[in-house]
C-alpha cells in the first residue's frame, strides 16, 4: 500500500468530495463524516509519504502507469512531502472546527459547501505533489474555482470581493498557463524534471526569459505578492470564517511553494541567479510588500482585515527569502511556509471563534473578550506572539533564518523591513489585546446590563468545544514547531536546498 501513498493523498479527498456531494442531496447528515474521511485519508497518506521520503529518498509515482515524459508523474521529495502533510493536517483541523459555523450560517447548503471545501484541499494537495507543469495548472484551476465560490458565499461585499479575486486570479492562472505554453513550444515537454534538462541548452533565449517572467508574475498574482495583492484583503476579510481559515493559511503558502518549486526544479537556481539576474529587484519588491502590508494593516479597524494585510506582509518574507540567493534565506523561506501556515491558521481560526460568538470582528466587537472567551483569546495571543516572532513560538526561528540570510546577502533593506514589520505586528496585536483586555464589555451583546459595570460579572461565553479543540491544537502546534525547528531544518529542509545557492 505504501507505494500508493502519492496517489492516495489526492484521490482520497477527491472521491470523498464526490460522496459528500451525493450525501448533500440525499443525507446531509453524512456530509461532514465523508469530508472528515477524505481529509483523514490524505492526512494519513501524506504523513506516511513524508516518513517514506525521509527514510528512502524521493518517490516517483506514474499515474496510469505511463513513464515520464509521456505520462503524468507525481514527484515527491522532502519539500512536497512536508508541505503536503502540512496542508492536509491544517485542512483537517479546520474542517473539524468548521461544523458549528457552517450549521449556523448555511444549514441548507452544507452539501455543496463541504464538497467545495474538500475539492479545494484536493487541488492544493495535487499542486503540491505533482511533477508535471500542466497538471499543476489543472489543479490550480480547481483550487481557484472552489476558492471563488467559498469566498463569494460570505456576507456583505463578499460577492464583489470574490468577483475581483476571480478577475485577478484568472489573469494570474492564465499567465502561468501561457508560461507553460511557451516552455512547451521551445521544449515539447511538460514534465518538470524533463523540462529542467531540456532548458539548459536554451539559456539566453528570449522565449525562455519571457516564459519565466510570465510564469512568475502569474504565480505572484495568485499569492498576492505586493503590488499584485489588491484582491486579497477583501476576499479573505469578507469570506465566511471557515473558508477564510482554510484559504488564508494555505492558498498563499501553496503558491509560494509552487514558486520555489518552479524556481529550483524547472528553471534551476543557476538560471535564475546568472541569466535572469533580477534578484535584487525582486527582493526590493518583497521589502515593499513587508512595509506596505504592515502599514496597511495599521489602518484597519477590523480583526479579519488586519490579519489579511499581515498575510500580504508575510508573503513578502517568503518571496524575499527565496530570492535572496543563499542557503540560509532559502531555508528561512521554506521554514516560514510551514510556520506561517500554522500561525495564520491559528489567528484566523481564533477570529472565526470570535465571529461565531459576537457575529462581528470589528474592533468594537472585541471589547471584554479576555473575560468572555479566555481560551480563544489565549490562542490568539499565542498566534500573535508567533507572528511577532517571540521564542519559543515558531515564527521566531524562520525569521531568524531569514534575517541571517539577509545579512549574509548584505541586503540591509530586507533585514530592516523584516524587523520593521515585526515591530508593527507588536503594535497591531497589542492594540487588539488592549481593547479585549482593558476596555469594558460593550453593552447590548450579552444582555448583561444589570451588572457588569466593573466587568467582573461578564458571563463566560466561550466558542463551542468543536472549535476550541482544533484551535488549542494549533496554538500548541506553534510551540511544538518552534521546538522542532532543529530536526525540521536538519532532516527535511537542508537536503533539498539546491547546491547552486551560495
Amino acid at each position: 500500500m505504501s507505494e500508493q501513498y502519492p496517489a492516495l493523498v489526492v484521490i482520497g479527498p477527491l472521491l470523498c468530495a464526490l460522496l459528500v456531494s451525493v450525501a448533500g442531496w440525499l443525507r446531509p447528515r453524512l456530509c461532514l463524516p465523508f469530508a472528515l474521511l477524505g481529509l483523514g485519508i490524505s492526512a494519513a497518506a501524506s504523513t506516511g509519504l513524508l516518513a517514506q521520503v525521509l527514510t528512502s529518498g524521493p518517490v516517483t509515482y506514474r499515474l496510469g502507469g505511463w513513464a515520464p515524459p509521456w505520462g503524468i508523474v507525481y514527484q515527491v521529495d522532502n519539500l512536497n512531502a512536508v508541505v503536503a502533510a502540512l496542508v492536509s493536517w491544517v485542512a483537517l483541523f479546520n474542517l473539524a472546527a468548521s461544523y458549528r459555523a457552517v450549521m449556523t450560517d448555511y444549514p441548507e447548503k452544507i452539501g455543496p459547501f463541504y464538497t467545495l471545501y474538500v475539492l479545494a484541499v484536493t487541488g492544493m494537495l495535487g499542486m503540491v505533489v505533482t511533477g508535471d507543469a500542466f497538471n499543476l495548472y489543472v489543479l490550480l484551476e480547481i483550487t481557484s474555482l472552489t476558492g471563488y465560490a467559498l469566498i463569494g458565499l460570505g456576507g456583505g461585499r463578499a460577492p464583489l470581493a470574490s468577483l475581483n479575486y476571480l478577475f485577478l486570479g484568472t489573469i494570474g492562472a492564465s499567465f502561468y498557463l501561457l508560461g507553460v505554453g511557451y516552455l512547451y513550444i521551445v521544449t515539447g515537454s511538460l514534465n518538470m524534471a524533463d523540462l529542467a534538462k531540456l532548458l539548459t541548452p536554451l539559456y539566453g533565449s528570449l522565449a525562455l526569459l519571457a516564459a519565466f517572467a510570465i510564469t512568475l508574475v502569474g504565480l505572484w498574482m495568485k499569492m498576492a505578492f505586493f503590488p499584485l495583492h489588491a484582491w486579497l484583503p477583501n476576499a479573505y476579510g469578507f469570506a465566511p470564517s471557515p473558508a477564510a481559515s482554510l484559504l488564508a493559511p494555505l492558498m498563499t503558502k501553496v503558491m509560494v511553494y509552487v514558486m520555489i518549486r518552479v524556481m529550483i526544479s524547472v528553471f534551476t537556481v543557476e538560471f535564475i541567479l546568472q541569466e535572469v539576474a533580477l534578484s535584487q529587484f525582486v527582493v526590493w519588491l518583497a521589502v515593499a510588500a513587508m512595509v506596505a502590508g504592515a502599514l496597511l494593516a495599521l489602518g484597519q479597524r477590523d480583526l479579519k482585515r488586519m490579519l489579511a494585510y499581515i498575510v500580504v506582509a508575510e508573503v513578502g518574507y517568503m518571496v524575499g527569502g527565496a530570492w535572496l540567493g543563499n542557503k540560509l534565506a532559502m531555508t528561512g523561506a521554506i521554514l516560514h511556509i510551514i510556520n506561517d501556515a500554522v500561525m495564520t491558521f491559528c489567528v484566523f481560526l481564533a477570529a472565526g471563534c470570535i465571529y461565531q460568538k459576537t457575529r462581528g470582528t470589528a474592533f468594537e466587537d472585541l471589547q471584554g473578550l479576555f473575560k468572555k472567551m479566555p481560551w480563544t483569546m489565549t490562542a490568539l495571543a499565542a498566534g500573535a506572539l508567533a507572528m511577532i516572532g517571540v521564542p519559543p513560538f515558531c515564527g521566531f526561528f524562520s525569521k531568524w533564518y531569514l534575517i541571517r540570510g539577509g545579512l549574509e546577502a548584505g541586503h540591509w533593506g530586507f533585514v530592516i523591513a523584516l524587523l520593521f514589520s515585526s515591530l508593527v505586528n507588536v503594535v497591531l496585536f497589542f492594540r487588539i489585546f488592549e481593547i479585549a483586555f482593558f476596555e469594558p464589555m460593550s453593552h447590548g451583546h450579552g444582555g448583561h446590563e444589570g451588572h457588569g459595570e466593573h466587568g467582573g460579572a461578564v458571563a463566560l461565553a466561550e466558542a463551542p468545544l468543536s472549535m476550541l479543540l482544533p484551535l488549542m491544537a494549533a496554538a500548541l502546534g506553534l510551540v511544538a514547531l518552534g521546538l522542532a525547528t532543529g530536526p525540521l531544518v536538519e532532516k527535511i529542509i537542508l537536503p533539498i536546498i539546491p547546491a547552486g545557492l551560495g
Partner: protein
Amino acid sequence: MKALALAIVALVGGLLISATVDFPDWGDPASPAALHVSPRYIEKTMEDTSVPNIVTSVLADYRGFDTMFETTVVFTAGVACFLLLRRREPRPGPSRVYRHRASGVIVEMSQAPDTEPAPEVFKRIDDDWTPHDLIVMNVCRLLIPFIQLFGLYVIAHGHHSPGGGFQGGVILGASVILLALSWDLRTASLRMREVATGLMSAIGVFIYAGVGALALAMGGNFLDYAALAPILMVDPVAARSLGIFFVEVGVGLAVMATMVLIYKNLASEGRLDQGL
C-alpha cells in the same frame, strides 16, 4: 492611471511578441513539440491502447489524470453555481400567470391561488408572458430525441472519430436546455429534476475516479486501465480501450448534468421556477 495601465499592457505585449522570434517556425516538422513526446503517441497509440484516435488516447489515457481533473473542474463549476445562486425562498410578488389552453387568453392572478387551476385547462406560464409558438414547441420536441441519440453516438464513438465525453455531454445537456427554451423551465425540470442533475454530475466524476481507484485496488497504479484486464476478461490493451470508454461515459454524464444544473440556476436566478 489609465495611461500607466496602457503602458504596462504595451510592455507585456511587446515582451511576449518579441519572445516569439525564438519560437520554431509555424508548422515546423522539426520543432521540439513535434519531435519530443509526439512521435511516441503517434507510433504507439494503437499498440498501447488499441484506440485509433490519437487525441482520445492522449486525453483519456496517457494524460488521463489531467482529464479527470478537467471533469472535476466542470463539476466544481456546477457546485459553485448552485452554492452561490440557489435560493429557496419564492420569488417576491404573489402574481401568477396562466394561459387558457383553448382560447390562448392570458390570465394574471394578483394573488397566488389556493388551489392550482386544472392543468389541462389553464397552463402556468412565466411572468413575462412567454409567447405561445406551436411550431417551435413541436419541432423542438421532435428534434430532441435525435439530438440525444447523436449525443450518445458522439460519446461512444470518441475512440474512432472526433468526439468523446465532453462533446457528447454538451450535446446531451443542450437537448435538455432546448426543451427548457422552447417549452419552459418547469417542463424541463419535470424531465430532469434538480436532484437528478446534482447526483448525475457527482456520479459522472465518480465513475472516472472510481475506474482509476479500481485499477489501484487491482494492484496497478491509479488510472492504469491495463490492471482491469482480469475483471473485464480481456487482454491489457483491450482493457485500456474499454477503460477509456468507461471514463468517457462518466465525463459525458457529468458534463450533461452540470450544464443543465448551471443553466437552470442562471436562468431562474436560483429559484428554478421560471426563466428564459
